[in-house]
């Protein structure tokens, strides 16, 4: 799964339309930054695309979707739960295999949290939890990343480090970002959402922060 071409996207909430109808097509290799005021419909759009591509993308939702009672390792491992049979997964729940444990740990070390692998996820800070969800998406090894504010809880240098990693590992991505500078720096194309419609769609090279400001 890499690019997609979707049209007629709509979503309603309590009888009120929050998105669309709109069309969005993303070619392989494009890195789309979704920008817009909070409540404009970015999260809904990401969720909608995820369902439309039949969940074949790696998703980092805003509320992360971690299983708090499980350690970090298992939350990351869940990104590829379909790669193994039930017995393998059941054994892993009790005692992970060396190979998986090595893979997950190397991912965690790139995110600067190697020593947290066996900590219960519930005991982590907000920024650490966000990195666990990112590690899960990386472990998923999909060509397409759908992420909703993936670095909102990370401070400056760490946010850049994570964004770089995401740029390296995913060929194609759609990332909702409220930080315009970050969007311009790491994305090749900016899509601005306003009142559930696409109000701006331009290559990021041609844009400055001032061009995006009217959206907010």
């Amino acid at each position, binding site marked *: 799964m890499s690019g997609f071409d979707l049209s007629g996207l709509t979503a309603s909430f309590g009888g009120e339309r929050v998105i669309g109808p709109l069309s969005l097509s993303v070619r392989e290799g494009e890195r789309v930054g979704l920008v817009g005021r909070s409540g404009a419909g970015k999260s809904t759009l990401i969720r909608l695309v995820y369902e439309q591509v039949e*969940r074949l993308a790696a998703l980092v939702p805003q509320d992360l979707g971690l*299983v708090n009672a499980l350690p970090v390792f298992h939350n990351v491992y869940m990104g590829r*739960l*379909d790669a193994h049979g*039930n017995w393998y*997964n*059941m054994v892993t*729940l009790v005692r992970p295999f060396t190979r998986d444990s090595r893979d997950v740990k190397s991912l965690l070390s790139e995110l600067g949290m190697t020593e947290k692998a066996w900590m219960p996820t519930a005991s982590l800070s907000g920024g650490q939890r966000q990195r666990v969800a990112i590690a899960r998406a990386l472990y998923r090894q999909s060509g397409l990343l759908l992420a909703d504010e993936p670095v909102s809880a990370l401070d400056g240098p760490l946010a850049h480090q994570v964004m770089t990693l995401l740029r390296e590992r995913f060929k194609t991505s759609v990332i909702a970002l409220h930080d315009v500078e970050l969007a311009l720096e790491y994305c090749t194309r900016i899509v601005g959402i306003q009142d559930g419609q696409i109000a701006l769609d331009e290559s990021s090279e041609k844009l400055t922060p001032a061009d995006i400001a009217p959206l907010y």
Partner: protein
Amino acid sequence: MLSSPTVKTSLIFIAIALVGLVFADIAITAANPWKDLGRFFLGVITPDFFSTEGLATALLRTVAFAFVGVALGSISGFLLALVYRWLPVRILCAFVRAIHELFWALIFLQFFGFHPLTGVLAIAIPYAGIFAKVYSEILEEADPEPGRLLPPRTGVVSAFLYTKIPDCWVQLRTYTAYRLECGLRSSAILGFVGLPTLGFYLESAFSQGHYSDAGAMLILFYVLITTMPLWVKPKLLPVYIVGAPFFLGEGLPIVWSNVGRFFTQDIVPSPLRGEEGWAGMGAWLGDMFVNQAMPGIWNTVILTQVALVATGIIALLAFPLISTHFGGPVRRTSGHVFLVIMRSTPEYILAYILLQLWGPSMLPAVVALALHNGGIIGHLIGRQSSTIRLRPDAPTGLNRYTYELVPRVYRSFLAFLFYRWEIIMRETAILGILGIYTLGFYVDSAIQNIQFDRAMVLILITASLNIGVDILGRFIRRKLALQTMPTC
């Protein structure tokens, strides 16, 4: 204040109970009730732990039956919870849990006899129904988001193990541990129908007037229950579960021809067995309805309603005993001890003791039900009241109780009370075995007269009555927007 729906509901229930009291048979018929009560308390403070050799065995059997029964019930309940969405499963579970453990024991006794299987199934079957309901409610509460994020081809079992179980684990464990405590109580009272658990020895000690022996058994039972956190450890559980079946005792062997006869002859309504056929069914059912079912239902309902209100009164009086808003640590500790004794003593044992002391009437049953259930609700409300933060200049004493605390806890109090309504009715029916004219009395008499067909119909009527009250209780709770967790 009278216009508040919770107050109005309470007043209606109090009025019903007062009318019920007019019809209820409340009396102390024993010649020397206070002397006997005094001798009993003397027995409790001078316990004799060494008179019966059977005491240790009885305790061991009580624990063994509880573990095997609850383990089986919990495993089957868990499997049923996975398919609980299916209506026939829900109906089956509602039905099996509406029949009290002692009724199940009475049924199994007729064809398995005094085989350990009788006791094990008597606990496991109703518990499976309860576990299925509560487990499925807990599993439904799990966060659905992690499941939505899984790769699409993930196996159902893997998805369940990774996203549902860890999220619910603590609640599942807490509830199962709570049920194990209930299982110990159920196991103890199975002795009253002849299984080799505590109730059996308690009954024989009482009937011979050996109050010090009875006191020793009760004290050991409280110790067993209060020390549960010390000896029920997750790591030891497999040992207990694997070991328990070996300590159930031999019992008597199953006579399989009895099993066959029970299902093909004993429980077939007598007109169908004889020459009358279906034509005789009307008269047979009519006779049973007028002479057994109706008086049984009438007495069960009256006793339940009186006991329900008495439970509420005891709970409201008892909760300040452990609330941090009243008294010092000494008073609260004794309050805790009092409430632990109240809620650890099965109502059946309390009723049995009071009945021995006061003679047969509804009074011992009301007092037993109110003390046990009031102790449970009082404990829960007391704990909840301790979490309330009062302003620094809040009134003290009676004003604090009436103005600050009761209004704040009243809704959860009612929620717990209506939750226990069905439990109280189930217990009321079963107390009939002790000689109070509720449905259990007529079931027990039918069995004594070897009329199993009648006994089965009466048990079915009892179950339907319980299901009806359960539905009504849930309706009232929803109407008043009251919420509770099932651990009560």
